[in-house]
């Protein structure tokens, strides 16, 4: 293990970060209630039990404490400002909220990460240090333990404490995103019947079968009402699914209606929605 004087260290960084895969499927996301400094995400079916998300944190510098062997430790905690605010207290008490006491952080959350400016400053003052991020101290977002070599009460320590207190040294940043997958479908038989009425297809001798010249087919297909496809205006993807049901041969298009092509389903492309995000430097 190599240490570099004054700069990023430590293979000793053990992140006790319990960054588990969070499962939002138990929560009623549509019913999230947003307030100035926090949001309440209820469980499905419940009006009062759920998770609290905080949108504003404050930093607290703890210590320094002596580790021994020339090492000191300072801990920076990030706590939500909402706790003990009257808006928070009123909401919790009036609704008898059962707080799950969990931080719903996604795996890629940035928690108590030292800012670039802080790293540069540490390098400037030739600080030899190691860091450790702790999570799980709800309602705190995270803590950062900074252990460094210095005499207790020395100048370098005072400079460090002063710097940590008066500058943006930590980043807290995450987004809670859910993926909406919406399947679409349309009634194919309806559309074929409409096309027949318009003149774009005619009945063939085989039952439930139709045909037309390609030019007639395409001429009248232009006139199909988008609402038949359950869209305001027909998308290319929907049209591709529609056309792929037909057989094209020389100058003729054929189709046979069956139970299998009564309803055509198009799997949703999935839109991402951000239900909560925070980006703070402290």
């Amino acid at each position, binding site marked *: 293990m*190599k240490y570099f004087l004054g700069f990023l260290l430590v293979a000793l960084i053990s992140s006790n970060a*319990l960054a588990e895969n969070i499962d939002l499927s138990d929560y009623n996301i549509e019913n999230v209630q947003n307030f100035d400094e926090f949001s309440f995400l209820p469980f499905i079916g419940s009006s009062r039990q759920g998770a609290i998300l905080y949108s504003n944190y404050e930093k607290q510098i703890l210590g320094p404490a002596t580790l*021994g062997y020339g090492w000191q*430790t300072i801990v920076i905690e990030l706590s939500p400002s909402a706790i003990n605010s009257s808006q928070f207290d009123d909401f919790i008490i009036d609704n008898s909220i059962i707080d799950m*006491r969990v931080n719903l952080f996604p795996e890629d959350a940035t928690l108590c990460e030292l800012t670039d400016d802080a790293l540069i400053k540490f390098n400037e003052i030739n600080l030899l240090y190691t860091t450790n991020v702790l*999570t799980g101290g709800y309602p*705190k977002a995270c803590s950062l333990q900074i252990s460094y070599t210095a005499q207790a009460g020395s100048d370098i320590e005072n400079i460090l404490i002063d710097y940590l207190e008066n500058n943006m040294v930590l980043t807290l940043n995450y987004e809670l995103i859910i993926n909406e997958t919406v399947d679409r479908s349309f009634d194919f038989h309806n559309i074929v019947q409409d096309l027949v009425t318009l003149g774009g297809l005619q009945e063939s001798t085989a039952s439930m079968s139709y045909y037309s010249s390609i030019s007639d087919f395409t001429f009248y297909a232009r006139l199909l009402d988008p609402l038949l496809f359950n869209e305001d205006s027909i998308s290319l993807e929907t049209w591709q699914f529609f056309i792929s049901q037909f057989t094209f041969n020389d100058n003729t298009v054929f189709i046979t209606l069956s139970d299998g092509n009564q309803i055509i389903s198009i799997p949703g492309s999935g839109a991402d929605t951000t239900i909560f995000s925070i980006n703070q430097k402290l």
Partner: protein
Amino acid sequence: MKAKNNLSLALLTVFTSSPIVLNATPLAPEDKSVADIFTVDIQNNFELYADSEDDNLIWYVPAGGSIAMLGSSSNPVPRFNASSFVEFNGVFAGQAVALMGGSFSTAGFAPLREQLEQEAAAAGYTVSPAQASSATTKFIVSGMETSGQVNADCDVTELTVTNPITGVSQIVRLPNCTVTYDDGTVYDVDTIQRFTALTPAGQTSVSTSIPFQVKTTPAYALTVANNLAVGANFDDVLSAVVDWEIPTTSITRTARLTIDYRSVFEKATTFSAIHDWACVDVEIATFFQRLVRDGDGITVEYLNDDNQWVLDAPNDADFIGVINEVEEELRDEIFAEMQSYTEPNLPNVSRETNSFFTLRANYEKLIFEANETRIINYNPGNAIKTARTDMFLGCLTGGFGTPVVASSASNCKTLFGIE
């Protein structure tokens, strides 16, 4: 241990003897579900079971809990304390660490228990904490799972530091704690030096109050003091889980057998011949399993909840229950049991028996060509259901020379039912 207090510290009681012989036991939820009587909030916070004897009784297991609270609901006294301690030996000699000690409780939260009782009473039920046949307690200590003990190796680590500008190297020494797993991986632990849970007798705890003690590192002592100033959780360093085994029974059910004796005897004859006309009991059991499974010779119909006879068994347990009953009903009609006693060996008289079965000549049944129909009762049998209680350490303030009290933060007060 006994806890005398005004709070109804509803305790999950555990039986230490097995097998459990109880007249009133929880019913398997797939047999009779009582969850629907309750609101979603109660369903989310308790595992619920009907009773096998008393239609008005519901058993419960709380899903979550925290530190044991004595005192009254308006003035709860947490069973927890924290203090500062200066190490006198070891790698942290001379430095201040924190000592924490307390007891988790599996009783759950008072407001939720009260709501459970109210909702049950409104529907005509009483509730009682479920009786578990065993409980396994696990602690998550600094991300590591343990059943009772963590002792970190706290020592000085030597590291080489290189100045990137001058290229000069120097050795630095850093006090550091690690834990070595069984497979040899070494895990850095920056929060605790030692954890002990005082659970009795090995892996399982039958106590509903789970005492523990923690000694921290000097760095984490700062966080302990801060957590106890703001009432934060200690999940990064300690939480507890109890896995309960709840023995449940099933309702006795009815099935209808249609027996074609000619076919059954044909099969029994073939079967016995294979075993040289002397089948042992395991082989007899196999015979009846096949008979019921193949449905050839015996047709089994199950009486379902709508009072209809159906050919499909409601579930595997029912199927096995029927086989056992069929064997009991028919075995002695088809097979004759021969028992031989081992020679007495004085002065120890042995009463061991070996039995084997031969085919009984059952001519009376064969005379009547018609099939016979019988109604039997069977019980799918007992099943062990598991339930879990998750407990956190948090919502506490004080310590370090001042009394520890429940946090006055509003989201802690509503959880513990403090006005």
